[in-house]
């Protein structure tokens, strides 16, 4: 870890590409662009698996009495005679959350776009530590392999929820899962190492490898948010790793950290988990916000409104994000006075998010809105994130939280933020940078169809979950028909399930568009969206080493419709009269 790599510019400048074998170029590559694409393929696979698990969960909730279609394809320990078993249901709930958070959204945002965009956007030839970057990917790959292996071991996969509350998770007696649980913890600890290495790399790169003229306040917001996110990853992930290792020791070598009968503290797990978990929430949304800012400015043909307040909002979110974790634990038996403090800090953290929403609207105000597919998804992000943000106010109010905590209202909230928020932003980002990544355009028509259908079915799926929650519907229950007060909600549950199946189905449009465009898409020009960023000044895809010569930057990334030039965009590296060297 402390070995010194040769200075990057020396290693890359003019290193001829044909020197590298296929394996060095595409498998064990140290090129940040290849690693980004590797992360993209891996995490899209994670996203797909997380989605499939969600479908099984929705089947069980929508049709608790029905026999699951294709259920006979799964082993008897999961689905028996067409009936999804409760132990498998608990595993599904756990692994849906785990996959979506750790193996889909987080690597998509941080692993893919952190890798792909940071060096290109700051004008660097590669990351500061390319070999470390390669390790970061392969360690994540191993982590995912271990996580997947959990499905095939005796006793099934971890069934303690993605939050792994001790002692349900620490004592195998309580769930009947031994190996699966240990694999879960091992996988998360390994993934943590990958994230920390990645974050170290991103931070160093942004601090030290910016092109001349790329000052802090000329950085695109996507880079700013990825930089702040990397700091959050760097400081939050070791907390999870440490706690996961303690839990793993409770399972394997007989320690008693979370075992109340031997002097341990079950609530300590919750504190540690959420001390990691709340910064994690922002890890899952900040890069989305940054990339959406880029796309909205481009689609509006206007500079980002309040660029500086956007940055200050990101920074204050990163600070406040560390002192609000207790709002996940209002009903956990935590000291109620502490709960009061957390409620107030939580109220404050809503403010920077509100500022960002208003600034996005300000950006669109009096713009010349061009609705290409990325812009459609980015605007949907804003619209959906608003809903997720507003529903958060209910939970922040501790008395209201007494009622809605651990109900589907929370499920609706998290999906409005993570799916409506992060995932729409990812659709925007993937479609926006796809031409740069693969050198081909994605199909515009099918992109629009995918967007429209996703938007409709997404809202049909998650909006009614608010109402389920207000009816008192608990999370993570296998069979709601057990309760009289939930029986009137069976119709809503069924409606949600059918919408969810449609939602999953229309994602196939995206998958096909992604794959077919890779081979058959229209050749992409260098700058298909008339954008200002440095990545658009090089070929699509960019060559190894990115820039033939280090670019010089003269202005910020959002000089759209500037009065200085005829066109409505002004690239960052274009020298105008009067620009100093």
């Amino acid at each position, binding site marked *: 870890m402390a070995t010194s790599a040769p200075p990057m510019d020396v290693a890359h400048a003019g290193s001829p590409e044909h020197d590298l074998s296929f394996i060095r170029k595409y498998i064990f590559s140290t090129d940040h662009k290849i690693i980004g694409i590797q992360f993209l393929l891996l995490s899209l696979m994670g996203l797909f698996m997380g989605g499939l698990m969600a479908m099984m969960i929705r089947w069980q909730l929508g049709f608790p009495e029905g026999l699951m279609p294709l259920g006979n394809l799964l082993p008897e320990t999961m689905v028996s005679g067409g009936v999804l078993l409760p132990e498998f249901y608990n595993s599904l709930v756990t692994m849906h959350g785990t996959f979506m958070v750790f193996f889909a959204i987080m690597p998509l945002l941080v692993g893919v776009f952190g890798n792909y965009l940071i060096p290109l956007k700051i004008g660097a030839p590669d990351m500061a530590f390319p070999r470390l970057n390669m390790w970061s990917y392969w360690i994540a790959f191993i982590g995912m392999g271990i996580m997947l292996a959990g499905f095939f071991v005796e006793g099934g996969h971890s069934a303690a929820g993605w939050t792994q509350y001790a002692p349900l998770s620490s004592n195998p007696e309580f769930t*009947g899962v031994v190996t699966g649980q240990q694999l879960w913890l091992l996988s998360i600890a390994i993934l943590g190492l990958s994230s920390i290495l990645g974050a170290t790399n991103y931070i160093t790169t942004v601090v030290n490898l910016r092109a001349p003229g790329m000052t802090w306040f000329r950085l695109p917001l996507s880079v700013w948010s990825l930089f702040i996110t990397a700091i959050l990853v760097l400081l939050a992930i070791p907390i999870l790793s440490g706690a996961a290792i303690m839990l793993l020791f409770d399972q394997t070598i007989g320690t008693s950290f979370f075992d109340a009968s031997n002097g341990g503290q079950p609530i300590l797990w919750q504190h540690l988990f959420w001390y990691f978990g709340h910064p994690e929430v922002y890890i899952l949304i900040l890069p989305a916000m940054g990339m959406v800012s880029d796309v909205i400015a481009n689609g509006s043909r206007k500079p980002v409104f309040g660029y500086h307040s956007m940055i200050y909002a990101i920074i204050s979110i990163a600070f406040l994000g560390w002192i609000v974790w207790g709002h996940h634990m209002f*009903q956990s038996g935590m000291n*109620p006075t502490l709960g009061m403090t957390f409620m107030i800090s939580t109220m404050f953290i809503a*403010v920077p998010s509100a500022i960002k929403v208003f*600034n996005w609207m300000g950006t669109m105000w009096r713009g010349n809105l061009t*609705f290409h597919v990325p812009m459609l998804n980015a605007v949907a992000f804003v619209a959906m994130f608003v809903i997720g943000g507003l529903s958060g106010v209910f939970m922040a109010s501790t008395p*209201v939280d*007494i009622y809605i905590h651990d109900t589907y209202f929370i499920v609706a909230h998290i999906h409005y933020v993570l799916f409506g928020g992060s995932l729409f932003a990812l659709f925007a980002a993937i479609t926006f940078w796809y031409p740069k990544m693969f050198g081909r355009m994605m199909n515009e028509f099918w992109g629009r169809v995918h967007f429209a259908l996703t938007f409709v079915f997404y809202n049909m799926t998650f909006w009614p979950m608010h*109402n389920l929650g207000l009816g008192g519907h608990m999370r993570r229950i296998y069979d709601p028909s057990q309760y009289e007060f939930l029986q009137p909600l069976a119709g809503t549950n069924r409606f949600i399930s059918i919408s969810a199946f449609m939602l999953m189905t229309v994602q196939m449009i995206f998958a096909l568009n992604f794959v077919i465009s890779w081979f058959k898409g229209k050749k992409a020009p260098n700058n298909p969206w008339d954008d200002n960023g440095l990545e658009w000044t090089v070929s699509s895809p960019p060559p190894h080493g990115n820039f033939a010569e280090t670019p010089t930057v003269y202005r910020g990334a959002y000089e759209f419709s500037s009065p200085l030039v005829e066109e409505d965009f002004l690239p960052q590296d274009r020298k105008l009269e009067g620009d100093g060297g």
Partner: protein
Amino acid sequence: MSWLLPPGNSTYAGDIDFLYYMILVITGIAFFVVEGGLVWFIIKYRRRPGRKAYYTHGNMTAEVVWTAIPTVTLVVIGIMSGSVWMDIRGRNSVPPGALEVGLIGKQFEWNATYPGADGQLGTSDDFSTRNQLHVPVDQPVVVRLGTEDVIHSFFVPSLRVKQDALPGKTIDVWFEAMVPGRFEIACAELCGLGHYRMRAILTVHTAEEYVRWVQEQTAAAAAGE
């Protein structure tokens, strides 16, 4: 699909529901303003050939205004919520003279223990019921909540009560029911295989009925011994 809460049946349900509806109205207004604004912008500023967007980097006044408004609103919501919270959960919030009932969660059932005639928990005349909780109406009840194994969460939707039971700790949670009847108790925290069927029934008796029920149970317990 309703945005109304189901009828509440505890003395503080009204306060909680008021906060909920207040936040619903505030966020509702914000929702329509923001989403409406977005739709309006999308239509009004859609691309037209030959037009250039208005070149601006922002406006300080606007930033201050839209920072101040949410801050003030949220702080007010926070302060109002805080006083209700302290009434329900604060250090001295349990009303004096509340009837004590023990409730222990275990995979996957709720076991309630009642003080017998002496009104004290932990004495020899205690008796218990399984998956049944009986309380009198119009009298504060403090549930001494514990668990034998994992974390469970004591959830009575109609009372607006939810509290996790933590291993190694007894947590007091109080309520005062207003209407007699039969209500459901659920476990709201994933507690294992049978989490979904960890259901119990809360029976709220009238005062006289409750006295009679306690006498029956005491007699039955005595006969059982």
